[in-house]
């Protein structure tokens, strides 16, 4: 059979984000896949070297559009670690709640992308609608729908507005009320099983060798979660579970996403109950003259896609000397994707890519 060169993306309905994969196909089978990133490269890390510590907050959230909040969190964590700023107890809780809300929103976006890819239009529309409800919460809290810039070194920008707790609970209940619908139409659907089972399998050994984190690893049964391994914010204050699956294929990964979403909602309820009163913000020095001592730091947190890291170097100036993000999509989208696509069928390219949860701007930065 003739070998064809096929470009999957960047202009493609099944592609989420500006990303492209060059496929060498024979019939319906993929012989070789080459990820081709760079469509979104803005040189963030270079630009951040030119801006002061505080000015970088609006920059940093733009790295990941789907879940900008964990980006803010990681940068705030890095700055706090370098400058030795303490965060009040209540701010820890608010941060955790905020990040978990963002995780729910991000997972719903992922569910939209995945369901849309498989042709589950109805479920996709529901998921996007429910994500919008979460975005409404963010809008009330921070004023922005997508980019919030809410987390600040030393805490969060402001406290919860009045009655916000109830709003969170109500919104999450109304989304949670639809979980049986999702289960019936999507997760327990036989056709979802047929489409996703055994597709894009990444075994434990492969995932470990290639630096997989997040769902890729949890779908193989390992409870590796930075929130648990190296707790930050208030994640060690309340009990919660790390959902896992065994098989490491697209089916397991999407199920892990679903379980994680539900676990996040439960965690938010627990955090809301346990939240102490008090300050939410420790004052930082004048941001225009703020310098940070000559140091380096590596911090990490768990974004909705996996381990998110930040290597931050200061040379004692008012700007970072070097910023480098370790984004989960980077390994998932470049190393693991190329391996998982080998010998797959063309119909499953988007299936595998989205189940690996690749967000292109995270790769390119």
């Amino acid at each position, binding site marked *: 059979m003739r070998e064809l060169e096929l470009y999957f993306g960047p*202009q*493609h309905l099944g592609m989420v984000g500006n990303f492209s994969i060059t496929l060498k196909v024979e019939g319906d089978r993929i012989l070789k896949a080459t990820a081709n990133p760079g469509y979104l*490269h*803005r040189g963030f890390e270079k630009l951040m070297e030119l801006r002061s510590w505080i000015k970088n907050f609006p920059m940093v959230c*733009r790295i990941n559009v789907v879940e900008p909040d964990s980006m803010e969190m990681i940068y705030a964590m890095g700055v706090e670690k370098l400058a030795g700023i303490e965060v009040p107890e209540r701010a820890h809780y608010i941060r955790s709640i905020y990040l978990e809300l963002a995780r729910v929103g991000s997972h719903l976006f992922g569910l939209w992308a995945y369901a849309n890819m498989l042709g589950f239009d109805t479920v996709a529309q529901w998921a996007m609608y429910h994500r919008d409800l979460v975005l409404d919460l963010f809008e009330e809290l921070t004023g922005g729908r997508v980019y919030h810039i809410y987390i600040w070194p030393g805490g969060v920008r402001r406290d919860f507005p009045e009655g916000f707790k109830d709003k969170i609970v109500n919104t999450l209940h109304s989304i949670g009320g639809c979980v049986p619908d999702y289960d019936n139409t999507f997760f327990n659907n036989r056709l979802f099983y047929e489409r996703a089972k055994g597709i894009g399998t990444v075994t434990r050994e492969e995932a470990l060798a290639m630096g997989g984190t997040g769902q890729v690893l949890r779908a193989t049964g390992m409870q590796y979660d930075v929130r648990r391994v190296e707790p930050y914010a208030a994640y060690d204050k309340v009990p919660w579970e790390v959902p896992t699956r065994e098989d490491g294929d697209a089916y397991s990964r999407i199920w892990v996403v679903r379980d994680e979403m539900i676990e996040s909602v439960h965690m938010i309820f627990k955090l809301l109950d346990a939240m102490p009163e008090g300050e939410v913000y420790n004052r930082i020095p004048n941001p225009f003259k703020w310098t940070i001592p000559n140091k380096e730091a590596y911090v990490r947190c768990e974004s909705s896609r996996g381990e998110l890291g930040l290597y931050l170097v200061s040379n004692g100036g008012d700007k970072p000397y070097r910023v480098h993000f370790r984004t989960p999509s980077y390994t998932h989208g470049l190393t693991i994707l190329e391996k998982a696509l080998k010998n797959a069928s063309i119909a499953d390219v988007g299936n595998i890519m989205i189940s690996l949860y690749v967000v292109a701007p995270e790769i390119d930065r």
Partner: protein
Amino acid sequence: MDRNQLIKWLKAPAKMGHKYSLHAVYFCTGCGIIEVPPSITARWDAERFGVLPVATPRQANLFLITGYVSVKTLRAIIRTYEQMPEPKYSVGFGSCPINGGMYWDSYNTIKHLDKYIPIDGWIAGCMPRPEAIFVAVTHLWTLIDKDMADGYKRYRDHYQAYRANQEHALGKLEWPPLFSNETKS
């Protein structure tokens, strides 16, 4: 449909067709794409205005350029724009294609997108809300009504200049010129 609409339909069916059937290229050029799924799904439902994402540029007549344009994306954007059949409308979404936005000093993003392809309208903001897309669509309707959405004509008229700018930014282009002999400007 009231009488005015009906008269318009009878007078210029093609124009009305363009107005109410804006099929958009689904091209995630930047972070603006995050607001496109909400606006085409249940909450905001762009389909009631006839706006629908389609799979290939050949089937489309609206090009939403969502967000910043890196140099590598510009190549894809130009190819996509040239593949679309005329008449076609392009709308810059977000502040980054207007003047670079917050990436004004990035070495890898295009600052003024209208130097490379003609743009019929801009939606400012970062991130513009889904409502902004609909405002833009209604605005585009008036532009089409008044024959002011003439980006594709400008592209034809000033093709040499556009092509020169594209080559300046991207180096040698690997595809032949779209219009060969028309040198009006």
